[in-house]
């Protein structure tokens, strides 16, 4: 057996190109498996630890204003472990001429254990001396080049407040710092969290003894829904704006969704590679056994047992699995560390250490071995059937066959004889051709998915920022204003249009199904804050009913003209009924819309606004207008469309690079599969190709025989791969859509074309790699006896 093994090594050496290409696929599979799972584990462990250590809340309650004593009421509930009362308010600030929003959160004047605690990254907690100390979001400090000891001047209720930065901090509550669920990308320059003393907050926000947020930690095993209901009941008289749990909180939701995706990717992505590698192993070893029938017969005749011969041939797949897993786990380890760091740039979880999880190496190895051995066994089991005598006889010539295609005389009659060779060969080895095209199917599907992701993003951006958010600037007010009060904004130079907007949280329910969503009231025929129906047509806002997004309609199980219950959080105006007047598209957020009149009908409140959208005569005046707005009283934030668009585009870089990686992988898959199968094809047909060469066919004509076969397989693969990719991309997109955004799945016609061009281009590269093999076919092969 030892000498046989030497023979095997020599066989391997002869086909090192094939060997290496299978190995690459296996390595990629193992590397993805270990690294993606490590990233998943690293992130989920760190977030869990982080949440526990700093006591992330289980339930957040937003109130209008309530005495701090409501905390005691909540703590009287038996299952409440701990609660912390805070004041949370947004305010605007201008830093080096740029406008940003700060979320003020109050903390106890002296440090004690609280729910949603903070980690001090640098500096210190508040000291007793000055009141105006603050701890600032670490990312905000970095993004805006601020330093400890510096003073900042946010505007609260129209007044500049001077605050000294005494420390930088992070909190599990804002791992991912999004202002609200209408944003999809964090922009640390434009939004940050600022922590101030409780006493100071009471003073500047005019809230002596009052709070507007309670974060609650529950005992283990508490049913969240019951707790939420109880809390709502207890706080009934204090104007509950919203009660959300950990699954709804923006930051934790974003993270758990991301982790969920990583987990499913870590499970599914490597399987494609294992599958493809087993296909190649299956075909390659099948040919190897077929071509070595004589050798197998000789071995058997010499007295080797079936098992020994089988083991000998199977050791080829074992070697691939072992070497592939070894290299793959090393590569995967480095990749895991790199990917964890990359992901964490986005999340800022405190990774105390990036662990490499050895435990993932074992399942990866087992998977690889299982796939390779399965493929190997299936291609080698024919060994049992080979009789020593039979193997030593000459193999009967392979029969050519007419193919179905030939019945169509019009087409067949016009195919050259070389073309006939290609087609008959493809049909003779149908299974091989089909398995090869599986590689192409995966590859082209992957390409299309990569391209369609960018198409979908572009489409959404264009729709959202081009058509729906047709305004230039949105201002938010610290309190609800009557529409008349907005005239001072309307009068600012360059503001051509102003539309008041009222945004509030509500709970919409249909029977037992309910959802907390944003509720937006617009003017009846909005021009700059547009609502579109499902076929992207601008529609008017009804004055006696509401419009809801498609997704919300699905969640609630309602259709047009159905009635739903709306629960407002305005004291005394809790329950209202409304008729659904239409279904709309909404890419970002999950909302219901009505008109100002509609709201008036429901609440009897008249024209009120919590924010306003503005259109300028020319966007070049944006910063001038923003500057004027900043200094106006009662404005908490001023955001321009270009700001959010830029933040989004900046973050598209990550998507672009993952797109690039997918295209690379598609190339590797295609080339490895096609190169392998074509190598087998050339090897098997050496004699035929050598004959053609002797007969006077040029290298060019001969290579067409192999190359065109590859092109045909590629084209066939694409015919299935493109629809498959379309389906796969749609499924992935649907899977990744959340309450905060749902990206419509769009594939531009151009992307199909690019996919086709790239697939053919990768095929061309494979063909170029095969050129040498074809050129080096020895003409003297024709003189040799058949094996």
């Amino acid at each position: 057996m030892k000498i046989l093994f030497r023979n095997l090594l020599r066989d391997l050496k002869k086909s090192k190109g094939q060997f290496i290409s299978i190995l690459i696929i296996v390595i990629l599979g193992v590397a993805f498996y270990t690294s993606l799972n490590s990233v998943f584990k690293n992130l989920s462990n760190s977030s869990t630890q982080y949440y526990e250590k700093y006591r992330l809340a289980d339930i957040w309650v937003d109130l209008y204003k309530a005495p701090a004593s409501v905390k005691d009421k909540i703590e009287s509930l038996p299952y409440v472990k701990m609660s912390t009362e805070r004041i949370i308010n947004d305010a605007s600030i201008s830093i080096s001429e740029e406008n940003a929003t700060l979320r003020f959160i109050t903390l106890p004047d002296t440090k004690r254990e609280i729910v949603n605690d903070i980690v001090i990254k640098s500096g210190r907690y508040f000291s007793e001396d000055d009141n105006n100390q603050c701890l600032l979001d670490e990312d905000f400090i970095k993004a805006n080049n601020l330093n400890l000891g510096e003073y900042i001047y946010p505007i609260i209720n129209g007044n500049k407040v001077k605050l000294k930065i005494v420390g930088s901090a992070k909190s599990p509550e804002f791992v991912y710092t999004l202002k609200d669920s209408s944003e999809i990308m964090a922009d640390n320059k434009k939004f940050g969290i600022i922590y101030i003393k409780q006493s100071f907050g009471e003073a500047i926000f005019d809230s002596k003894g009052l709070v507007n947020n309670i974060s609650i930690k529950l005992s283990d095993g508490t049913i969240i829904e019951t707790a939420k209901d109880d809390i709502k009941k207890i706080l009934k008289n204090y104007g509950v704006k919203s009660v959300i749990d950990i699954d709804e909180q923006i930051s934790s939701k974003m993270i758990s969704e991301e982790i969920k995706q990583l987990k499913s990717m870590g499970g599914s992505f490597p399987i494609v590679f294992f599958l493809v590698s087993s296909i190649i192993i299956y075909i390659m070893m099948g040919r190897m056994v077929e071509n070595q029938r004589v050798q197998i017969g000789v071995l058997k005749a010499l007295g080797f047992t079936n098992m020994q011969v089988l083991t000998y041939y199977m050791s080829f797949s074992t070697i691939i699995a072992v070497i592939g897993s070894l290299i793959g786990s090393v590569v995967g380890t480095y990749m895991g560390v790199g990917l964890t760091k990359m992901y964490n740039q986005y999340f800022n979880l405190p990774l105390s250490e990036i662990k490499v999880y050895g435990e993932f190496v074992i399942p990866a190895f087992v998977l690889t071995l299982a796939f390779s051995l399965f493929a190997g066994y299936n291609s080698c089991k024919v060994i049992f059937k080979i009789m020593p005598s039979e193997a030593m006889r000459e193999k009967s010539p392979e029969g050519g066959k007419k193919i179905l295609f030939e019945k169509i005389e019009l087409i067949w009659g016009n195919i050259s004889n070389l073309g006939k060779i290609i087609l008959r060969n493809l049909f003779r080895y149908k299974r091989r051709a089909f398995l090869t095209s599986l590689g192409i199917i995966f590859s082209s599907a992957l390409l299309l998915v990569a391209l369609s992701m960018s198409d979908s993003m572009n489409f959404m951006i264009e729709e959202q920022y081009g058509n729906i958010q047709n305004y230039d600037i949105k201002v938010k007010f610290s309190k609800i204003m009557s529409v008349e009060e907005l005239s001072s904004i309307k009068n600012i130079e360059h503001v051509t249009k102003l539309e008041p907007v009222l945004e509030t949280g509500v709970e919409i329910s249909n029977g037992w199904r309910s959802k907390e969503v944003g509720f937006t009231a617009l003017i009846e025929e909005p021009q700059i804050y547009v609502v579109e129906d499902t076929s992207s047509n601008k529609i008017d806002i009804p004055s006696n009913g509401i419009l809801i997004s498609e997704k919300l309609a699905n969640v609630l199980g309602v259709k047009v003209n159905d009635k739903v219950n709306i629960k407002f959080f305005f004291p005394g105006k809790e329950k209202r009924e409304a008729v659904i007047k239409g279904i709309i598209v909404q890419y970002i957020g999950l909302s219901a819309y009505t008109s100002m009149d509609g709201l008036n009908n429901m609440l009897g409140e008249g024209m009120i606004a919590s924010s306003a959208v503005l259109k300028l005569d020319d966007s070049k005046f944006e910063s001038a207008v923003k500057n004027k707005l900043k200094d106006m009283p009662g404005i908490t934030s001023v955001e321009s469309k270009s700001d959010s668009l830029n933040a989004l585009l900046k973050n598209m870089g990550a998507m672009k690079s993952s797109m690039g990686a997918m295209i690379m992988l598609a190339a590797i898959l295609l080339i490895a599969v096609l190169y392998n199968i074509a190598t087998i094809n050339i090897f098997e047909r050496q004699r035929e190709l050598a004959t053609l060469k002797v007969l006077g066919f040029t290298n060019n004509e001969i290579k067409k025989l192999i190359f065109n076969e590859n092109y045909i397989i590629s084209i066939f693969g694409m015919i299935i791969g493109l629809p498959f990719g379309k389906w796969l991309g749609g499924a992935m997109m649907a899977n990744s859509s959340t309450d905060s955004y749902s990206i419509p799945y769009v594939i531009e016609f151009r992307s199909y074309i690019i996919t086709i061009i790239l697939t053919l281009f990768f095929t061309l590269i494979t063909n170029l790699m095969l050129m040498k093999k074809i050129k080096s076919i020895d003409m003297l092969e024709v003189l040799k006896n058949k094996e």
Partner: protein
Amino acid sequence: MKDPIVIVKDVTKEYNMGEVTVKASDKMSFEILEGEFVVVLGPSGSGKSTVLNMVGGMDRPTSGEVIIDGENIINYSDNELTMYRRKKVGFVFQFYNLMSNLTALENVELVRSLSDNPLNANDIMRDVGLSDRALNFPAQLSGGQQQRVAIARALVKNPLLLLCDEPTGALDYVTGKLILKLLYDINKNSNKTIVVITHNAAIAAMADRVIKVKSGTVESITINENPESPERIEW
């Protein structure tokens, strides 16, 4: 006097096998006249294959000249050699080497397309006696029938020269004789120059010219004034 169509002059072929140099042929010289039926005779390792390789344009000699139809082909580029094989030589191999994915007729048509002045494929199929098997694939034909297809394939491009490498080597006695008869008839009826390379001394009787090779050299050249018909040859 007919013109020599092939002139092989002082052809030496050396193969470099690592440290040793093997001489496959050493200053071989001979001529073949137009319309002749030539048998190159020799045991294995005698340099027969070198003759085939040199005259067939499949390899170049280390030194010497190979003049075919007045042109010295030893300085031909790979491409020119391909064109030479394509236009001027018809090959018949011991193991037929038909394209398994093409029918008998398609095999002939495939090569027909290479020629500037080809013959009619169906006529050739009739000439080799295979009209009724034209639509069969090689795997459906006997060895003798496959060799007939191979001969038809070689003839269809109307080559200057037909090179046959052990054409009967894989066939039984009776079938082998029928194939030789076919080659003999082609030579006599169409005056096609035919070179048969073989180790079978009996075949020499049917040749106009017999070139005996041994250890890489030409041992003797015999002109046969009265060649025998293959029917009367026995071995």
